[in-house]
């Protein structure tokens, strides 16, 4: 081993030459080959990998769309239509990208609720969780910016409404909105900067995802039992056990995605966005894309402009404080008989808020939105701290293996497994 070179166990001379100078093969082997993952993952642990694939597909299709897209108010709408009609496979590229945004949010929301249910945000994974919330925020911004680019009616009015949220800020609000617009209304400078930022942010997301994964590989993955692996018997090497499980999940997920792309490409969209942007006419019923509906309901539930905006942002920001709001020492909701009910009520609450967000803000929908908003914040700010203090959790298993592997002499074990007693950390 020459001075200053990294140790490499690869025998192929070319790989070894590279690896001892830039140990990228050793790193990949360590992080994705032998990385010890708890052996009891269920399919909810697929969604991080799925999100990674969606991000890459979005970046690739996005770069290709940008090759034929024109970020100018006079040409944007027509350039998107040209992609749909004239460019080879342009329809495919756009439908993958357009539905990809929805797929991304489906995957990420399941990923977030997975973390919420199994307590993946708790010590020592607080920073891992917070990086995830940063990714969610970046995704929300990117999705919004991208929705503006086709320059249809919904694009234009989404841009107008969302940027006007900042006008609620006292004193400087109007100046901030003018600054965001680069003018006195949503116009060409706005479209241009939205395109520039929509192109930029996914690469920022890639950077934060890298940190997210790096942090994950320090603490190790959580698992459905929410207890740390105690010995080698509790883990499996990532490859091939979880590479193959992720591949299978990816196959199923891609079928789901393709179903939308090929059979219902506009199902999740809004027909009004096929009308070119008109600054003089607001569509009678504007709603955001489905993935923003719960937040939209929270915004409309509050009769005060500033307070509504504060709650809208607060609904995401509160997630940053989750590791400290949840006072329970037990991670997995499986062992939390009281919290379990509040958790599922929270899931229902998010769905109800989403439904209210799609309905007109009047009558029963307004009342439901208000109740939903109260529970949303009550869940995080009141229920989580209190339940953790008063709940008596069910007993945790001694190890990940204990509930599934029979104790010594219990049943047929592979040869060798019975030979030595279970290691206890």
């Amino acid at each position, binding site marked *: 081993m020459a001075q200053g070179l990294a140790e490499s166990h690869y025998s192929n001379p070319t790989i070894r030459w590279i690896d001892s100078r830039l140990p990228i093969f050793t790193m990949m082997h360590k992080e994705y080959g032998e990385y010890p993952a708890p052996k009891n993952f269920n399919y909810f642990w697929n969604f991080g990998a799925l999100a990674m694939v969606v991000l890459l597909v979005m970046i690739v299709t996005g770069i*290709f769309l940008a*090759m*034929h897209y024109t970020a100018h108010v006079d040409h944007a709408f027509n350039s998107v239509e*040209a992609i749909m009609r*004239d*460019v*080879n496979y*342009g329809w*495919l*590229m756009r439908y993958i990208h357009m539905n990809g945004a929805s797929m991304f949010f489906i995957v990420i929301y399941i990923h977030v609720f997975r973390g919420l249910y199994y307590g993946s945000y708790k010590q020592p994974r607080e920073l891992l969780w917070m990086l995830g919330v940063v990714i969610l925020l970046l995704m929300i911004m990117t999705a919004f910016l991208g929705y503006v680019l086709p320059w249809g009616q919904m694009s234009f009015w989404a841009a107008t409404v969302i940027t006007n949220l900042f006008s609620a800020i006292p004193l400087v609000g109007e100046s901030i909105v003018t600054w965001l617009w680069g003018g006195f209304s949503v116009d060409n400078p706005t479209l241009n900067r939205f395109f520039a930022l929509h192109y930029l942010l996914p690469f920022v997301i890639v950077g934060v995802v890298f940190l997210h994964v790096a942090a994950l590989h320090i603490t190790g993955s959580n698992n459905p039992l929410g207890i740390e692996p105690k010995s080698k018997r509790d883990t499996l090497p990532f490859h091939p056990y979880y590479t193959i499980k992720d591949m299978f999940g990816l196959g199923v997920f891609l079928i789901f995605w393709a179903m939308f792309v090929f059979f219902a490409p506009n199902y999740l969209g809004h027909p009004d966005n096929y009308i070119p942007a008109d600054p003089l006419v607001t569509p009678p019923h504007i709603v955001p894309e489905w993935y923003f509906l719960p937040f939209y309901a929270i915004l409309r539930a509050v009769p005060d402009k500033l307070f509504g905006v504060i709650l809208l942002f607060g609904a995401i920001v509160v997630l940053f404080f989750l590791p400290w709001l949840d006072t329970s020492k037990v991670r997995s909701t499986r062992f939390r008989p009281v919290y379990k009910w509040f958790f599922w009520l929270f899931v229902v609450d998010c769905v109800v808020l989403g439904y209210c967000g799609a309905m007109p803000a009047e009558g029963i929908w307004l009342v439901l939105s208000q109740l939903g908003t109260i529970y949303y914040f009550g869940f995080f700010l009141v229920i989580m701290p209190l339940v953790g203090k008063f709940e008596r959790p069910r007993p945790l298993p001694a190890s990940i293996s204990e509930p599934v592997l029979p104790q010594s002499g219990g049943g047929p074990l592979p040869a060798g497994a019975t030979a030595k007693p279970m290691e206890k950390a």
Partner: protein
Amino acid sequence: MADTTHPEGGHGEQKSRRDFLYLTTAAVGAVGVAAFIWPFIDYMNPAADVLALASIQVDLSAVEAGQAITVMWRGKPVFVRHRTPGEIEAARAVDVDTLKDPQPDSARVQEGHDQWLVVVGICTHLGCVPLGQKPADPRGDYGGWFCPCHGSHYDTSGRARLGPAPTNLPVPEYSFMSDTRITIG
């Protein structure tokens, strides 16, 4: 055959079965990847609106003998020259075998329309547009075109005669709709 499908040891069978599964999986994966990549490659090919502009019609009735016009076709200049009898004669008098890209003049014009020369006006050296279309332009030593970038000379048939240009100016696909009207592309 029986020997290969039922080898002596069970281990060997396991191995060939696994190899078969690996290979078929890899093959299906390769086909899938290729099927996914093709739309991305084809996406960068000319789109339908570009192809729709791929052929143009040109009216030649106003071009007098000795004059030339330049028309835009597929984003490139196309030289259409109404040659004088003297120019045609000069193009035909050359010994074809002495040319660096041997081609008789008759192969570069359409029969019965010898006075019309249609060539893509891009120097075959490195893509500049040669001079020679306007009456005041230098036309080089052979009365055709002269490329100012690196000094290539073309004759009245658009053939490379002097300088670094390796081949003649290409003749695009075109046809006469009538005596004074052509379709290029």
